[in-house]
């Protein structure tokens, strides 16, 4: 009864990733990709999260049996750090990177938590990159994704890899929603990727892509994204 040549339906997170990539590409960002099984160095140490630091407790990490130096990445910030390190070696600073990828957290699942989910991370490095630029870039992004009437505000936060650290909130349908963590790269991070923190400033941001999808389209449960159920592909 159905035409076999009918076009298939896309997964909503793929669609959202495409859209997000497009918005950032239009601002000069380059797409970055990296391994899902990441070294502890890029997942933690590069990002100024030393061993035995309480900050390593903030994320429940999957460690790998018989591969002590490896973890399932807990964020895609590691991808941005790798890309910037490479760009530095190639003499391609200033540069901006954006990465959407699967990340993993070892925690109990519920409607807003899943062991695997998609994160969107970005960074921009140059000589005078500032928190004002971060606000400009993210405001543009959320307007493109959620509508021109969206407002963005910053609230104080803490992450080991950013200083200052902020929590990004977006006002959507009259409500302030927590969207992502962000800030200016800690000088140790810039140093760890082989660049001079006295010369360069770098903005970083990252948060759940699933969360944007849930807000944008009203998807009620994050676990629906990973069940292989085609009833999800409605958009």
């Amino acid at each position: 009864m159905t035409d076999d040549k009918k076009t298939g339906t896309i997964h909503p997170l793929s669609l959202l990733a495409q859209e997000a990539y497009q918005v950032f590409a239009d601002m000069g960002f380059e797409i970055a990709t990296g391994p899902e099984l990441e070294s502890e160095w890029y997942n933690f140490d590069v990002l100024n999260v030393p061993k035995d630091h309480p900050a390593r407790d903030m994320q429940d990490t999957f460690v790998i049996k018989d591969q002590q130096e490896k973890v399932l990445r807990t964020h895609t910030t590691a991808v941005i750090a790798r890309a910037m390190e490479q760009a530095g070696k190639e003499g391609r600073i200033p540069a901006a990177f954006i990465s959407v990828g699967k990340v993993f957290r070892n925690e109990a699942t519920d409607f807003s938590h899943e062991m695997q989910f998609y994160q969107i991370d970005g960074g921009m490095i140059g000589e005078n990159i500032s928190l004002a630029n971060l606000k400009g870039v993210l405001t543009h992004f959320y307007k493109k994704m959620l509508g021109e009437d969206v407002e963005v505000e910053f609230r104080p936060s803490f992450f080991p890899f950013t200083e200052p650290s902020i929590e990004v909130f977006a006002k959507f349908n009259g409500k302030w929603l927590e969207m992502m963590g962000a800030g200016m790269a800690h000088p140790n991070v810039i140093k760890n990727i082989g660049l001079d923190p006295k010369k360069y400033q770098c903005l970083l941001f990252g948060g759940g892509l699933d969360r944007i999808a849930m807000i944008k389209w009203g998807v009620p449960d994050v676990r629906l994204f990973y069940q292989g159920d085609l009833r999800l592909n409605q958009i």
Partner: protein
Amino acid sequence: MKYSYNWLKWYIPDAPEAEKLAEILTYHLAEVESLEKILDKIASKGEDTILDIKILPNRAHDLLSHSGLARELAALLDIKFTDPTPNYKVPESGPTDLKIEIKTDKCRRYMGRVIRNVKVGPSPAWVVAHLEAIGERSINNLVDASNLVMFNCGQPTHVFDLKKVKEKIVVRQAEEGEELTTLDNRQCKFKKGDMLIADAERALAIAGVKGGKVGEVDDITTDVILEVANFDPTAVRKTAQSQNIFTEARKRFENDLSPTLGDFAMLELSALIAETCPEAKFEEIVDEYPAKPAERAMEFSGDKVRSVLGLQVSDEEIGNVLKRYRMEYTNTDGKFTLQVPPLRLDLALEEDMAEEIGRVLGYDKIKGSIPKVNFQPKPNDLYTKITWARSRLLSEGYSEVMTTSFKNKGKVSVLASASDKNYLRTDLTDGLKESIKLNQVNAPLLGLDNVKIFEIGTVWTPAEEMRVAYGDKKEIKEMTLEEYASQIEKNSAALPASGLRHGQNFSQSVPQKFTMWALYPFIARDVAVWVPESVPSEEVKKVIKENAGDMVVRGPELFDEFKKDGKISYAFRIVFQSYDRTLTDVEINDIMNKISAKIGEKDGWAVR
């Protein structure tokens, strides 16, 4: 941590009302998780507000206490801070023979004081009220005094029964296999290097974590040793982790308290005990202080603050913030030299000062701007190939799914606690098979005869590899992305080189909404109708739709038509489903009968 608004008011009597305070905290300091009105048992007007504030890790060393938060708020709001020190009265102290030995470099300071002739009993009403307001339980006057000091100034303290301590206090690391029973009757066995407080013979407490039974204060205790100490944060954390013990004391020590806090804490603890034990005889404080922090100065430039924030804040405004925080500084041509207050361990770098100035002034002052930099982005080969593969598969009628990366067998094993699926997948095919099974059941609901799906994702064989898999119930093909991409004609006009299409606005898709599917089973029914050849299918569809009721989740969908003898047959499928119950065949039959009847009323129409 939970903070009592009335308690904070001791220090900052001019504080705005609790709701306003919560808003200020949210935008300038930390998230307020909840605000709860409670009865205040001692205040005559009877109300208090409890603020649950998620203090950020970089301020845990100075804000996990009422006086700490009050001091911050006084500076932030530029209001009066009432110093409680002059109110604390401790009787004149006599000589002491208390001996303290520090045998580890992980203890930065240990202050001890013997008090004799104390009387263990209930706490005064105000102490009980303060502790209960923030969810703590009153135990006795000595233990309560110790707890009150921690929640008031942030310094954990401990009280030992002097008569149960043999000879002296020793701060040392544990021997392998050493044992202790904690105050809450937990049997601990230590690893070499764990941090202990001991006497001449045995362990008395886990340093900075939890007291032990052997030195416990009880109803007949008359003489005590007060402990006000400071330990290396990593050492406390490791010891507590190895015993899996979480306490308020641990939380504070592992966030790196300043040893300078000890003086105030000892004064406060002594004064509180003096208040409930007027007969007590105080001995002098023994203060072993091997790691006294040096006074610390730092430099930062106004230009760096402005550059990081992207905000034109003047040196004068920066200076005004520093003054409010009682930080002494000099400013020479925009170069600030700052005497860092001993409790502000978080201020060390120029970037820290940018954050301090930014959050105090408020991040709303910063106006967003997209930088005008001529970036030279390169295309990403992997993403381009993923986009090619996806476009191609979609155009061939395959729908995209994502399935779990975790399996119960594989070649790379994760050490997981929350799941029984402890391996990473070695292929995509297994997941697709499950997905096809699931979707085949829902095929009528999806309007599909044959479920065709694909996934593009990572597998571990054990090396990490990006794969493409696609197929239906008959066959699934799986290969590396590289292999799949090499099959695609790269000159196809539909595939932009970078996988990107510039200049689109996606907010237009906003009104599109996701509809959660019903969790009850669906019923699919077909109806075929003969009508005169001149009647378009839309007209028949309309009649069916109008009479199908509100349980239709899909259709009526035309799936077949053919002509014969001047008539045409249209076949439609309708799928029924309820969001709140299981539908019965009987009620769907009623609906179908009603549709048939309506069709029968039309001239020349007949249900086949």
